[in-house]
């Protein structure tokens, strides 16, 4: 690109008024600042990607633009005029349409019915089906997919990509000027992505602004002209694709100071035998998973949302078992077909969603802690086995071990703080004598102090020879805790990194950036 062209581009950019603009938008949720004084401009005929780590504030920003959230402060300008939306309908009326990752289509109705849902053309109060289908056909032709999708096809019979096209057709039928897409390519195959790309180009030529959120840098660089990077709710910057390399964007996405102390990592002599070995294992979410887990180590699993981290934990724990490949537990090949088998084989799983998968909210701390012990005994077994008498000693022991702050173990778990609830969950697995622990987001949604104590606790477990598999979205946590890091992308293990790897290294793998050849070179150069 010549200097001249560049200047010309900038000139036109300055001339054209932004289609949509946000000024100093902030949004707080209890305990988190989701967006902090973010200002952004979206030009007409521009494809604009918004990227960032999990929790960077991308989705919040999109929801504010679409009227689903109301910002605490700041302005939204549409064609230079100030607007405020208190309902998604208002945003839609103004021409801002959002397509969520989970589509809002009714599966058992036709394409045409979905597109014109609630706005069906009618004659004397009766829906004019012929006109409905005709309008839909025109719309589908407009976006050039009339050969792929018939207006009378049932939505449930369409592929994910086709459903997305229907969503886009629907958006256009609202005369959308701004189209927001949340992870549009997450569930698409390569050819489908190409198709979407062509369509987005067409929309762009019509003067629409297309904004999309993505975790995949490859596609961001294929699709977008501009990239905005958010981090921890703040705007890092907006760059033109042609001016930057993927590695630059990765550096913008990560890189912050560690804000709390982590216990020291394990030393080589702490690591023992391999306790869990997975070889070429797959199921419908996962492809060709192979890794080894040693006694006394913390194996960090990094990856963005939807990369298959949780699915991998669930496969190892028998929730959604592997369907092919092999799994060796302490040297013995076996099939873990359900959680009960996993627990009997001394695997513990501290789940991601504590509320819905971890605690029994209305039961006392005592019964929460003893649940695993109870469940692996025979239902018909002796009534007193491990009932009252042993529990009397076991519960306070566990409570002390995990440091639950409570006046009584008869207190219902729902009245404890998040950190204390997490400790109770931990105690439950200590009670079952697990020596392989899987942590899925162990410190999500708990305060800094409790976080540190859970990190210490995880490290203490490894000192006792327990092997830990730790999934986390928080890169500092991954780096601070892991003796090795596996990075997942797109349902498989993208690569393994040693302890103390940098955030950019991990993020590059996690976004699939490895697949962009030049990025590797840049990163290699940066290392030297």
């Amino acid at each position, binding site marked *: 690109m010549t200097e001249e062209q560049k200047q010309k581009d900038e000139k036109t950019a300055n001339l054209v008024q932004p289609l949509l603009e946000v000024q100093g938008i902030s949004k707080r949720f209890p305990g988190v600042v989701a967006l902090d004084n973010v200002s952004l401009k979206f030009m007409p005929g521009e494809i604009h990607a918004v990227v960032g780590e999990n929790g960077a504030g991308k989705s919040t920003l999109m929801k504010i633009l679409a009227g689903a959230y109301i910002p605490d402060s700041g302005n939204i300008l549409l064609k230079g005029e100030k607007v405020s939306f208190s309902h998604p309908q208002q945003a839609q009326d103004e021409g801002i349409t959002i397509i969520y990752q989970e589509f809002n289509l009714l599966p058992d109705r036709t394409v045409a019915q979905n597109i014109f849902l609630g706005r069906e053309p009618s004659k004397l109060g009766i829906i004019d089906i012929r006109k409905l289908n005709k309008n839909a056909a025109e719309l589908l032709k407009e976006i050039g997919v009339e050969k792929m999708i018939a207006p009378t096809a049932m939505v449930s019979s369409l592929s994910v990509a086709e459903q997305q096209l229907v969503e886009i057709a629907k958006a256009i039928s609202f005369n959308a000027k701004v189209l927001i897409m949340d992870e549009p390519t997450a569930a698409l195959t390569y050819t489908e992505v190409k198709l979407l790309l062509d369509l987005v180009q067409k929309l762009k030529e019509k003067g629409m602004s297309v904004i999309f959120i993505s975790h995949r840098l490859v596609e961001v660089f294929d699709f977008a002209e501009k990239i905005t990077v958010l981090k921890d709710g703040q705007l890092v910057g907006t760059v033109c694709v042609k001016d930057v390399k993927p590695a630059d964007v990765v550096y913008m996405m990560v890189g912050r100071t560690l804000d709390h102390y982590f216990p020291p990592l394990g030393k080589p002599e702490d690591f023992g035998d391999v306790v869990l070995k997975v070889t070429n294992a797959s199921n419908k979410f996962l492809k060709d998973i192979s890794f080894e887990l040693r006694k006394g180590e913390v194996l960090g699993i990094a990856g963005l949302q939807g990369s298959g981290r949780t699915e991998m934990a669930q496969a190892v*724990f028998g*929730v959604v078992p592997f369907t092919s490949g092999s799994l060796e537990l302490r040297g013995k090949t076996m099939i873990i077909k359900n*959680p*009960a088998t*996993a*627990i*009997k084989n001394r695997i513990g*799983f501290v*789940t991601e969603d504590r509320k*819905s*998968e*971890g*605690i*029994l*909210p*209305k*039961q006392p701390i005592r*019964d929460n802690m*003893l*649940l*695993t012990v*109870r*469940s*692996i*005994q025979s*239902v*018909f*077994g002796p*009534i*007193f*086995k*491990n*009932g*009252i008498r042993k529990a009397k000693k076991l519960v306070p022991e566990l409570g002390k071990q995990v440091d639950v702050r409570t006046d009584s173990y008869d207190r219902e778990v*729902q*009245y404890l703080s998040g950190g204390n609830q997490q400790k109770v969950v931990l105690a*439950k697995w200590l009670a*079952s004598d697990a020596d392989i622990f899987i942590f899925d987001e162990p410190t999500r949604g708990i305060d800094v102090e409790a976080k540190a104590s859970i990190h210490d606790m995880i490290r203490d477990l490894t000192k006792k020879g327990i092997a830990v598999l730790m999934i986390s979205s928080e890169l500092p946590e991954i780096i601070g805790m892991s003796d090795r890091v596996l990075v997942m992308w797109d349902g498989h293990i993208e690569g393994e990194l040693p302890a103390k790897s940098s955030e950019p290294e991990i993020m590059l793998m996690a976004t699939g950036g490895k697949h962009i050849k030049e990025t590797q070179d840049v990163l290699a150069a940066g290392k030297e």
Partner: protein
Amino acid sequence: MTTTTLKQPSKFLQILKTIWNGIKRVPAVYYIFFGIFIVLGLLSPTYQSANGIMAFLRRTSPLAILAIGEMIVLSTGGYDLSIGSIVTLVVLGSSLLLNNDPTMMPTAIWTMLALGLLIGLVNGFVVSYLKIPSFIATLGMMLLVKGGALYWVGGAPRGYLTENWRDFGRGYFENIPLIERFPYALAILLVLALVTYFIYHRSNFGKQILAIGDNVRASQLSGVRVRLVRMIAFVISSLFAVIGGIMIGGFGGVNVTIGEGLEMQTIAACVVGGVLLGGGKGSVMNVIFGAFTMEAIFNLLNLLGLPKPYKDAVQGLIIIAAVAYVALSTRKKK
């Protein structure tokens, strides 16, 4: 509160506070029951004598037994609507089997228990394995059992219940000091209550029932065999309904509507006894008193001379009021 205000009148206030806290800790069902019972006593001399009280307890015991069984299913987060029909089945079927021959009693009991076991297993299977919501599954079973029972006896009650059979429900241990007589029914209730107390409050199985009622997903991920536990819960409920049915045969006549509405009465008793609909909480003692409360309310309505439709309406009101009370009080706590 500051320290100064605590100082002077504190002793007396503190004692009051402790008493008040103690009062608050006792579940509401006990206050309601004794309140109503005192009113009953004031209105009718029957409820002032030991004999009258024993007769009341005798009448109530079958409902209490049904309620304990229902509580087990409610605690898993389900419903069992088939128990009223099971009572009908037991009364109709046993009168046919016995046919005025006292020696047939053991056969009849075993047959009924076997039928109860079968119904419970089918309920449990349909709910846990076919994943039909228990409300619908047991509603279907309610019609199926009732229809089946009528078909079995040929459309109208046949045969007679023998004296030895009827004694389970209406007999007494005689010549007991102080209280004169002690009903068999109450003795059966006490034994079953004790057994259930240990299963429900003290055993691993009981804790797993509460666990799945509280959070199925978390229980499953902690290794609880959810389907098995649910099956057993339905079996217990059906077996208790059979036992209740045997006792109810003791004082009601043999008729085809004898079990009608019992499922709603027991659910009301459970709710009044503090069982959470949706699962996760319950208490054997409180549920027994819940059943007593329901019976006391019905007796009160009788004494006031209100006809039967009022009974149904009041029952509906009680269920709604009790559930609303629980919802409001837990919201306040949070």
